[in-house]
């Protein structure tokens, strides 16, 4: 077993897991955060995308032990009890998702983009979503939502709940 201590959505968390545990399994099975999805399990689909030290990564391709000491943000870290993150709100407003399986990964890729580049071009948005597959809605409505968030200057995390 290996001990992993990481900052998860702002809180320091520790778990003891076998070394072959991926970060995705740690999140879903040890911490019960099932927003990040297991899709292809090889880095093709992006459904497992989380942000580690500010960068989008495939949590299925990272061992939990590789996240030791690092800062991890998942889809569960965006909304507060009373308010969705602007990306989540605009995805809902624009009808950017149908089945929603790809959604958490897409939104984390978009968040990583907007955190670094608050005013991306359409091409930059498309490039940032290159590692996220959607098989039902298509990408246009997602891009519209991300552009709307960027236009409003609302890429920042929601203020804390009242």
């Amino acid at each position, binding site marked *: 077993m*290996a001990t992993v201590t990481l900052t998860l959505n702002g809180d320091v968390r520790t778990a003891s897991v*076998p*070394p*072959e545990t*991926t970060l995705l399994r740690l999140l879903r099975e040890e911490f019960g955060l099932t927003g990040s999805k297991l899709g292809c*399990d*090889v*880095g093709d689909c*992006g459904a497992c*995308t989380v942000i*580690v030290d500010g*960068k*989008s*990564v*495939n949590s299925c*391709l*990272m*061992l939990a*032990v*590789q996240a*030791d000491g690092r800062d991890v943000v998942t889809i569960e870290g965006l909304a507060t009890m009373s308010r969705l993150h602007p990306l989540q709100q605009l995805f809902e407003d624009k009808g950017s998702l149908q089945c929603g399986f790809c959604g958490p990964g897409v939104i984390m*890729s978009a968040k*990583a983009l907007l955190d670094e580049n608050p005013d991306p071009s359409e091409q930059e948005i498309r*490039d*940032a979503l*290159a*590692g*996220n597959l959607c098989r039902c809605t298509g990408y246009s409505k997602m891009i519209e939502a991300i552009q709307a968030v960027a236009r409003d200057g609302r890429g920042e995390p929601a203020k804390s709940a009242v």
Partner: protein
Amino acid sequence: MHNFAYIRPTTLRDAAAQLGKEHGKVMLLAGGTDLLGEMKDDLRVPEKLVAIRQLRELQGIRPGRGGLRIGAATLLSDIAESAPVREQAPLLAMAAETVGTPQIRNMATIGGNLCQRPRCWYYRNNYPCFKHGGSVCYSVTGENEYHAILEGGPSYIVHPSDTAPALVALGATVRISTGGRERGVPIEKFFVGPRQDPARENILQPNEILTEIEVPSAPAGSKAVYVKEMVREVWDFALCSVAAMVTTSGGIVGDARIVLGGVAPFPYRALKAEAVLKGRRLDEAAAAAAGAAAVDGARPLSKNAYKVPLTQAVVTRALLSLA
């Protein structure tokens, strides 16, 4: 994935001390984007993984003698965005940018990109082929549409790296450490073809670590481009790619480096295409002649003959973009 022992050393020397003499028992883990896929499919069942991504000795992009020194554990995304790399070796930045997805580039390292294993579906599906110590290449009589058209045999894998052709074109040197001793190897000599060793793609021994890549600055008057042709437009491994660097003086080509990815078991230097260009003006006729020379000697398999005109066209197009 099978269980393994996980070691996270703090120095290169400690990491090297963990390594053994046998391939596959103790393995190095950098970004893990290739190795974890192999381990999930039971292609590799290491007893021990030694994490090296965090090693200080393997980090960073620094100025070096006449160029840059890039630590082997530097992320591909950091290389693609690096101002010094874009200035001094833009070809490498261009190639790094085409690797995988943003998520992959945020995890994968340059050293891992050079050492990644082939994508051949027989290899990835654990057929007992040359790469698994067997004595058959199943692509020869099988589904070979993505296999080698140049330098194939006895194994017909293609080398999947994008940064490798760029680094060969730039004349890079890789540094290899055993912990105590270190040596530099011209990157062209780092990769080996299947006639030299059908089971492996490079010279690294089980007790060695690729530590650094020395990248000379692109010569004055040079222009370079990396063109990658894929099945999917967004991202994929290359059907064929070309790293081309042309140095001109007074409109005449003084030097040309043309290196192909995705068509041979190692980054293939198209020496005949380079020779065609030297001393000529880079115009449409010269680019077309170099494109034809690049695939001179190609021997396609039953289902990949399309790669010959494709590669020829990609080389021609790449060169014309530099004219």
